[in-house]
Every structure is written in C-alpha cells, then in structure tokens.
C-alpha cells in the first residue's frame, strides 16, 4: 500500500463566492486528509462529495400537448448522481403531459427509484 496523497483544487459551485478549495486525499483509501479555502461548511461537504460521487440537478424540457407552448421546462427537486442523468434524460424524452401545467407540479415522481421528483419550472396554459 503506498502512502502517496493527491492534491486537487476544486471550485465550489454551491454559491457564487466560488471558493477555490484545495484538498488532499489518499487515492487508495479515498480518505481526505486536508481541506483548505472553503469559506463555509457547505463547501467542505460539497468537495468531499464532488470528489467521489458528484451530484447534479437535472434541468430539461418536457413535451406538453394541447398547450400554448410546445414545451415546459422541468428540473429535479434534488440533486441526483451524475451517473443517473443519462437514463433520466431518456425517460424525460419519452414523456409528454397535457396542458395546462403549473410551476411546481410534479410530473415524474421518484423516477427510476431516485430520491427526487421532477417538477415543472415554467407553466404552460391550455391552448
């Protein structure tokens, strides 16, 4: 087992402060040895996660039928793992909903068993 540690600088994306957080970790044990540069605790938690299991909010559009506009925008209510995004997109592409839809309306509930819902973020009135 080697004791080499790796240093990475990640820019925190939680808030617009964009702190440049440098962290040192052991690539084998995935153990973080030091974190510098975060202005707040959220940032520290974020880098740890970003390094090993990045999470993203997915934003996209969903087909609306019979509406004033052909699409409504949507997003996941929580961040989901980056690796699940591709499959979730396929599900969204295949879905369509009847107008009207309102902001906040759940269009997919816990899709693919994920711990989140997909909600409307821009409403569409009926034609």
């Amino acid at each position, binding site marked *: 087992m080697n004791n080499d540690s790796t240093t990475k600088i990640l820019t925190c994306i939680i808030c617009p402060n964009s702190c440049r957080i440098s962290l040192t970790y052991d690539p084998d044990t995935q153990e973080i040895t030091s974190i510098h540069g975060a202005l707040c605790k959220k940032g520290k938690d974020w880098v740890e996660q970003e390094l090993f299991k990045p999470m993203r909010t997915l934003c996209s*559009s969903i*087909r609306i*039928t019979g509406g004033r506009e*052909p*699409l409504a925008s949507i997003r996941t209510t929580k961040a989901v793992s980056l690796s699940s995004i591709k499959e979730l997109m396929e599900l969204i592409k295949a879905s*369509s909903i009847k107008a009207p839809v309102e902001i906040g309306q759940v269009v997919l509930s816990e899709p693919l068993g994920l711990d989140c819902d997909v909600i409307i973020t821009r409403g569409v009135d009926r034609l």
Partner: protein
Amino acid sequence: MEQYDVLIIGAGVIGTSIARELSAYDLKTAVIEKEADVCFGISSRNSGVVHSGIHYAPGSLRALHAVRGNELFEELCSQLTVPYERIGKLTVAFEESQFPTLEKLYTQGVENGVPDLQIIDAKRMQELQPGVGGARALYSPSTGIVGPYELTIALAEHAHAHGVDFIFTEEVVSIKNRSDLYEIQTKKGSQISAKIIIDAAGLYSDSIAHLAGIDSPRIYPCRGEYYVLDKRLEDELQLLIYPVPGNHSSGLGIHLTNTVEGNILIGPSNDYIENKEDLSTTVQILARLREEGHELLPSLTSSDFIRSFAGLRPKLTPPEVGGFGDFIIEDHDRFILLIGIESPGLTASPSIAISIREMIANHIPLALKKDWDPSLTREERFLELPEDRQEQLIAEDPDYGSVVCRCEGITKAEVLQAVDRIMGPVTYIGIKLRCRAMMGRCQGGFCAPRIAEILKTERDITIDEQFYKGIESPMFEGLLREESPHE
C-alpha cells in the same frame, strides 16, 4: 418543351433589368436561375454606388453605359419605389503631385458626358463633409447610392407582373443551337427552348458561352471583402469619399460607402481567388479593414461592426495584369453574350437593358404592350409611416402591431408580405432581402426564432422545410420532442 422568344440566364441585376425592359413588349420571356431566388449572385454583394462615369476611358462601353445608366436611375427608382439617393462623391487628392490625376479625371468625365463636375478646394470640401482630409477634390454631384437587392427584386417583380416567367433552382448545363431555336437543358433534366438566349450569368457567363460553343474569354473571380457598420454612425458621412486612384493611401485603398439604409460599408478589398463560390471573409483582410475603419472613423467601437461579407468581381483581366477590362456585349447569332460586367455593372444595368432590347429587335419585331405600367408601388415601412396611416393599417391588419425584428423595426405583417412576395422557394435570405428582418445589429438573433414560428403557424412550413438559402441549406436539425400534426 416550353418555348420562349427570349430566355435570360441569370437573375442578377443585369438579367432582371433586361427582363423588365422586355416585359413592355409582346414577347414570351423567361428568366432561369440556378439559385433559389433573384439576386443571390454578385448583385447583392457590392457597394451599391451609382457611379457618375468619371473613371472610364472615353468611348468604352463602361463609360457609355455608366453615364446613361446614371441618368436613368432617378426615374427608374421612383417608378419601382426603390431607395435611391443622389448624394454626390468627392475624389480626394491629398498632395500636389495628385492634382494632375484629378484634372485628368475631370477632363475624362466631361468628355464622357458626366454632368456638373467641379474641382473644389479644401474649404468647399469642409462644407460638404466636415472634417474631411485632403487638399483638393473632384466633386461629382451625380454619384448616387441605391439598394442593390431592393432594385433587383423590384425589377424581377415588375417583370413578373407583366408576364415574364421566372424559373428558379434550375442550372443550365447544356445549350444546343438548332438553326432557329436554342435548346436548353438543366441539371434537373428540364428542357426549354428559345429563339434568343441572353447570357447574363455573371461569374459564369464564360461557361454558359462555352456551352453554346462560343469562344469567350475566361472570367477571373476577384474577391472584395466588406464590413457593415451599425446605423448609429449614419450621420458621420454626408457623401462618398474616395482617394484618387493610384493608391496613394497605404493599405488596401479601401473606403467608406454610405448605404441607403444608413449602414456604412468598409471595403472592398481586392484579391484574385480560384473558386467562384468562395465568398469567405478572411482573418487577414478583416483585420486590415478594421484597422482602416478605425483610422477613417475614430468613433468606431467594436460593437459597431455588425457583419462582414464578400462579393466576387467577374474580371476579364488576369491577376498578372490587374486593372479593368471593358464590358463585352455581343450578339453571336441570337446568343447575346454579356461578360465582364463588373463595376459599374449595377449603374450600367438600365442602359445595358436598352441596348439588349435593341439587339433583340434585329431578330424579332417588337411591339409595345398597351397596358404596360412602368410603376410598382410599395408601402413604406410601418414604423416610418405617420401615425394616422399606422392607425389605419393596424385596423386593417392587426399583425402590423407585432414587431418581429426589433433592430430594424419590422412587423409580422411586413414579414408575411415578404414571404408571400417570394417567387421561388421561401428562404430566410429571401425574407431578409425583401423586408430587412435579420439584417440589423443582432443579425437575426432575436427575430430568426420568431420567423421560424411564423412560417410554421401562418404558412404551414414545418421546421424541417425551413431553409437558409436553398434546399441544401436547412436552418434547423428538427424538432426536439415530437409534435403531432393535429395539435
């Protein structure tokens, strides 16, 4: 096989001028064009100057047609409701050594019949254009500016209204002389015959002549690149200002040109190239145009450069010779060849059309139509109309109230009229040339999506059938999520 008296190959300003001239006579005439629309060739890619005729050798066709063409412009443009302004031009000498050249141009101009020429001093120059440099200038008040595509389109529409057929997206690939008839074949396989062929194919008039077995000189394309500037600068330039020829100024000897729309052009450069389709602008030339632009107009900022474009001169003089050749206009046994119609071809077009009509009269007796009306009226731009007229129009058509192109202030009603005026397939360029939507400072960033929507909902042209300049030129990839047709 459709048979015509006259078939004009090429729907540029030359072809359409001839078409309009002939539309006054009892003739069966058609114009055939390889592109989707009129004016997709050189005629939309030039400076739009109606030259006075001082630069051409006395006795040449260029001198003859430029001076006579210039005389005809005022009436022509008012008949067709085409923007035209006689703003005048200064040809400026910066140092004494250039004075003889000015004198020479003056004498040449007078000999060519150019009206009202004057050599003026620096004081008078300042009155005409405050801040202008130079010691002395030749002032030619008859020089004007015109909207080149507005003109070409109006000529075509007028000709069409008087019975001339227009055939688009058909490229002529073969011409056979059958004693008293020419038989033409297109790339798509259509066949057309005509007693008289007019070769007005611009950059390709040499190849068309070769198809007919006529030994014509070859054309060397020579590229001119331009920048278009924001209308904000409109008031900076009162009239046209050119340095005396002989290339005193460093760089490209390029100049600023006012346009009838208020955008100033910087250019054109001058480079022989190989490919007649290569309308690229280049890093090197654009950089030099910007540099010279800043020198000529110190108040220029980077956001004033709204776009660049290039036009190709159909030159008869090879690169090693340079300079200008004269126009060639010849009748080869009912095949009328027009070749080397570079500048001042736009200026010359109404005059050339008359000469061609005279040539045709040698073969076919011409009878004037009784009901031929020389005018083509057109409503002015909605936002430029007085308020009472706006009220009237908007009551008739509510779409006048919906602005589609914010930069040029073009309304939905005007966009739809432009769409409906297009004779061939609807293209974005066709719409743009007819109503100026997408031509402003945002270059369609704002209105192109709106036009896409209008074409879809008002004219049933789906996203997949929307083209930029022809059917090889799709605007979009397609729909993101499928839409059923019956929604």
